[in-house]
């Protein structure tokens, strides 16, 4: 996934769409907005980002799971949780440097799924499909001709906490 921070206005449509599509319980979020201000007054810079699970290439939440409930889906290398295997040990929550996971009120670990149920039907994730500024782009990073690969090749971008070593797969255009 590629997110254009220049276009994102922090309207939270993506947050509402996710909560509605995935019936995320009240008080919890699978995605959220971050307002990141850097610099020294008056030379300040604000970056607005729509954030969620980074579906890392090296996901510590998967390697630490004692039951295999946290796993990588073969389609698009999406990181998912099998609720019927999860014991609620919270190890995956502790292992995520992004705080992207939470414990669902029913007891299992929960997080963004990239709306895999929609993607398997050829649809876009709910957050991407509703974005009014079209700042979010979803596609195949392994295909050099895909929209996301083209954007990454032509624009400056960064990932969150690269030093954590998880190799996140959500890229932010700047």
């Amino acid at each position, binding site marked *: 996934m590629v997110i254009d921070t220049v276009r994102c206005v922090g309207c939270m449509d993506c947050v509402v769409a996710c909560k509605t599509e995935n019936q995320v319980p009240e008080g919890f979020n699978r995605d959220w907005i971050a307002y990141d201000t850097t610099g020294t007054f008056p030379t300040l810079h604000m970056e607005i980002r729509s954030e969620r699970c980074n579906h890392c290439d090296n996901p510590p939440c998967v390697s630490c799971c004692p*039951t295999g409930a946290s796993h990588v889906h073969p389609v698009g290398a999406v990181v998912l949780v099998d609720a019927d295997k999860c014991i609620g040990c919270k190890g995956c929550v502790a292992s995520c440097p992004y705080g992207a996971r939470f414990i669902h009120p029913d007891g299992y670990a929960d997080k963004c799924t990239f709306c895999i149920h929609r993607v398997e039907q050829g649809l876009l994730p709910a957050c991407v499909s509703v974005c009014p500024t079209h700042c979010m782009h979803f596609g195949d990073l392994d295909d050099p001709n895909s929209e996301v690969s083209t954007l990454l090749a032509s624009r400056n971008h960064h990932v969150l906490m690269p030093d954590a070593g998880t190799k996140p797969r959500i890229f932010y255009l700047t």
Partner: protein
Amino acid sequence: MQELTITRHNELVDPLMHIWSWQIPVYLFLGGLVAGIMIISGYFVLQGQYKKNVFSCFYLPHIALVLLSGGMAALFLDLEHKLYFWRLFTTFQIAAPMSWGSWLLMIVYPALWINTLIRIPERYQGKIPIFDDWSAELNKHPTLIKNIGILNMLLGTLLGMYTGVLLSSFGARPLWNSAMLWMLFLVSGLSAAAAFVHLITTDEYEREMLAKADNAFLTLELFVFGGFLTGLLTSSRVHIEAARLLIDGPYAPVFWVLVIGMGIVLPLIIQLLAVNHKVKHTAVGPLLVLAGGLTLRFVIVYAGQFSHWT
């Protein structure tokens, strides 16, 4: 300057992670204590002390079974999806320390149980006749008994290491992400076990020996703490920030006063005086060591969750 505001407010995760409460420190403490007991008990068995009226060989494995079950109960209470706990034993995840630990505990239980059969305390003899028969059979094979002692020492070492490896494998928590943590928890477990025997044994030889051993473990623990903090302070920015949580941050008072001062230095002084016959052996030293060991787990678990990448 950097100011980050997020709209997320997930329970147990925001504003700072606090997913693990008292259950995990208690589990880690009891796990470490049992690990130390297995090593000490196994050592006594290996030395042939089981032939004498020595407390460690008589009661320690029985007590360890109870303590370990208490630790497992605390762990069970922490699980959020309790009815699915059996999933731990339907798979083995080679990259997950928690999976290794689950299966290790499945071996620890029978190892401890067979240790209890070496010498059944008089008050329990005849209660379950088949256990008496097995005990008699075991005692015909001294080499087998020595191997049981070695097995207990080996499994105790692995269990003590595991309690630290479990936390240190979480790279997202810089305070835990140290290669010294397993050593710290193993030495602390040994120290707690030595203090435990020192506290409740009625045997003079054992009390003196375990007090001396505890002094060595406490001294070693101070050095391991030095290595642990030095390792963090010479690492990346987030690791330095994590170390400072203990050194001069919000956890410093508890760390310096309760863990280092009252949990290690003070009992070390008291027990050094006791083994040099300057003062009598009392319960004060070992009780401080046990309280310090428990507080150490609380501080590390809580401060570790507080530490994070930015």
